[in-house]
């Protein structure tokens, strides 16, 4: 289905994205109920009370009304009470670190751990349990919850797949956690949403959500044919530059921890 403009956030393909898009619509409609009348009243009042209108009843000394004070404070207050409640509850319900359940089609799928590292200017995805890694494309089984752990080997970036929902920063020396899920097979573009230097615009990757057998086949293929990723080849990969999608078999299972620790050396961060 290719409706113009319906893409990105407007075309959610997972529960996080769907809930967030729903929230965006609800809050927008709530506020439109106030601001559309305000815009109309602004233009209507200004036009009706124009200097040349003989029919308008002038009230040049009307500059205070206790009952209207209730309206001026009360209406915004009520709207904000409602939206504030929505904000507080949704901040908890859609906390990026809160686990997401599996899709009904694969009810018993355990969360898949993926480690994400932003480099200058590419994304490294490490699958610690499967012994593989990939650059600039993220192959995942559709319906499974994804548990992403993110850090940066360089400046700050923001991992964002608009169709799957929540973005989160990747920061050197720190690990953030983000749960996502792609409900159906498909290809969803991902970006860095935090400017990170000259190659920033090329920090693109596709999330390829595939059925479980295809995912297993990709793992096996990558383990067998992927280039070796150890500390030496990682060092080469980490050099500034952009990259086409690549697959690796992971020879250094602790790579993510090494990257996380490298940026705080030699004195460790108090956090």
């Amino acid at each position: 289905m290719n409706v113009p403009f319906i893409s990105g956030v407007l075309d959610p393909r997972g529960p996080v994205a769907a809930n967030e898009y729903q929230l965006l619509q609800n809050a927008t409609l709530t506020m439109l109920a106030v601001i559309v009348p305000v815009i109309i009243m602004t233009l209507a009042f200004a036009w009706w009370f124009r200097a040349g209108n003989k029919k308008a009843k002038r009230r040049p000394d009307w500059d205070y009304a206790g009952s209207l004070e209730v309206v001026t404070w009360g209406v915004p207050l009520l709207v904000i009470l409602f939206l504030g409640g929505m904000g507080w509850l949704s901040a908890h319900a859609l906390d990026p670190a809160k686990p997401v359940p599996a899709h009904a089609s694969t009810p018993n799928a355990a969360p898949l751990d993926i480690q994400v590292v932003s480099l200058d200017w590419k994304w490294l995805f490490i699958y610690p349990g499967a012994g593989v890694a990939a650059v600039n494309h993220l192959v995942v089984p559709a319906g499974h919850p994804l548990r992403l752990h993110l850090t940066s080997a360089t400046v700050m970036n923001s991992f964002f797949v608009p169709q799957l929902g929540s973005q989160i920063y990747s920061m050197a020396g720190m690990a953030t956690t983000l749960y996502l899920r792609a409900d159906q097979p498909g290809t969803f573009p991902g970006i860095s949403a935090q400017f990170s230097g000259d190659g920033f615009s090329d920090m693109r990757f596709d999330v390829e959500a595939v059925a479980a057998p295809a995912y297993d086949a990709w793992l096996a293929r990558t383990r067998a044919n992927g280039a070796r990723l150890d500390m030496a080849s990682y060092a080469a990969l980490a050099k500034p530059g952009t990259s086409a999608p690549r697959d690796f078999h992971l020879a250094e299972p602790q790579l993510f921890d090494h990257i996380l620790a490298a940026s705080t050396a030699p004195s460790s961060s108090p956090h």
Partner: protein
Amino acid sequence: MLGKLDWSAIPTDQPIPLYAAGVVMLMMLGVAVIITRKGWWTMLWRDWITTVDHKKIGVMYVMLALVMLMRGFVDALMMRSQQAIAAGSNPGFLPPEHYNQIFSAHGTIMIFFVAMTFMVGLMNFVVPLQIGARDVAFPILNSVSFWMTAAGVLLLNVSLVIGEFARTGWLAYPPLSELAYSPQVGVDYYLWSLQISGVGTLLSGINLTATILKMRTKGMGYMRMPIFCWTALASNLLIIAAFPILTATFAMLLLDRYLGFHFFTNDFGGNAMMYVNLIWAWGHPEVYILILPAFGVFTEVISTFSGKAIFGYRSMAAATMAICVLSFMVWLHHFFTMGASADVNGFFGVMTMIIAVPTGVKIFNWLFTLYGGTVRFSVPMMWALGFMATFVIGGMTGVLLAIPPVDFITHNSLFLVAHFHNVIIGGVLFGAFAGYNYWFPKAFGFTLDERWGRAVFWCWLIGFYLAFMPLYLLGLMGATRRMQHYAETGWQPLMWVAMSGALFVLAGIACTVIQLVVSIRTRERRRDTTGDPWDGRALEWSTPSPPPEWNFATPVQVVAADHFWRTKREGLPLPGGPDLPAPSNIAMPRPSATGFFTAFFAVGFGFAMVWHIWWMALAAFACIIGVMLKLAWRAEDETIVPASDVAAWYRANRKEAA
């Protein structure tokens, strides 16, 4: 001898900045030739460069802001063209290293040297007149503030031809802005130009706060101040509280870059998120520093052109001060996506939304001011109405972004870019233009042309909607900010619509220049002989236009809010009105070159620091101290304007009025 500076600093491989610099230098040369031909140098030095008159300083601030608006807009035009072109495999015409400088410079210039400078200029010009004061509390300091701002501007623009500007975005987040990732001088230009102008801003904030607290005329209690003075007070209190944070944050980044400290570096336990927290602890109050005076302008304009007192004055004042306090409690909403806990995100989300309450109160009060009024659609009023209709949309998207999970899908996107342009153009810039058209006759003694003024308004209004409504949609379609190119050719049509909006704004800027030229050429028939061209309400309209150097020959005794309006209606003697004031000697501060020389050496200092020319930095700093010491040892700081001269001035300038 010259530190890091050598001939390679001139970007001979980049034609655009070189041409731009060439054009600017030719224009400056042309202006210098005209000034020399007309023999204006002495006048310029005596009446403007060394002036300590708050009105002239205010005018110079606004002129500086208008000039920088053009520079910042050229950057905007290049960005919009780049994004309109660079879709699919097309790399566009600006390589990343140049494009990244352009959006960094655009943001820095527009916030610090257009919005900020414009608002400080309006406050400088208007506040003393509205509270019945002869000048600000510290007139020489005021001149120092202005020239320090100008020094920052000059240093930033030098980076166009000598070296380069920051490529880090307008807030220079580390670690990208650290030496490890930005070894060039761009970030240093950014830091030193904002450190220098920041000193000026802080001093100006102290000055205007002291002025409002201590210099109000007899009977001008707080609850009788025009709302513009309330908003100016809130804005300047925020400057005093927030700008030291900015200075300290930049100082830490400078220590990292110059002396190998590790406040924000990736290694040795540095923490970049500390910078992000600190910069927004300044940055969020900053947006209220900008918007509050604009709210004040709209209040004056809507009240005047509706022929009514502002509705709910007390609510207006309370809402202003509520925003002032709340603006310090919301900074974290700029980085909900850093992975803080749900409690932290929820708290800052709710605090942010609460600011919408006092803002909503203001909107309703403006609405009820219109209601029952006699509305005149003069140019300032058109800006005010355009603001009310536009700003609420920006307010709505702001509250959307304050809901943490909505922010997770819109953070840093073009949706965000559209939001803050919606409030800064639709709020601050519309306010600046409303104020410019409203107070111009007070400053220069003749009104601006209405027809061209309307053209400016419509170009900006249409241009704004065309340029930024597509960006809201693009943001939701997944487009993030600061892309030098993008793969999705489906975004391109909307990018072209945005580009057409930029062209409308270009027409608006052209009309601004035409409006000014036409108005100057036809000034004889648009003279403001009454001092009160709009049937105004506050004290500034009780003085002749332009007001004398001393503003008020005799102190005004205020008995009510909207004092001038009431005196007109009730036929009381007008303060500073056609009845000659009893002549008395008036002590006025002497002109001072302190500000100019301080700024001159500050530019030298900043430039030397950027290029690591240590001896020059030391010398320039010593000179700044010397200039200050010379001021401290001055023998006389006031001149006496004799009563006879005062009387003569009013006789000469009243002829038309009487």
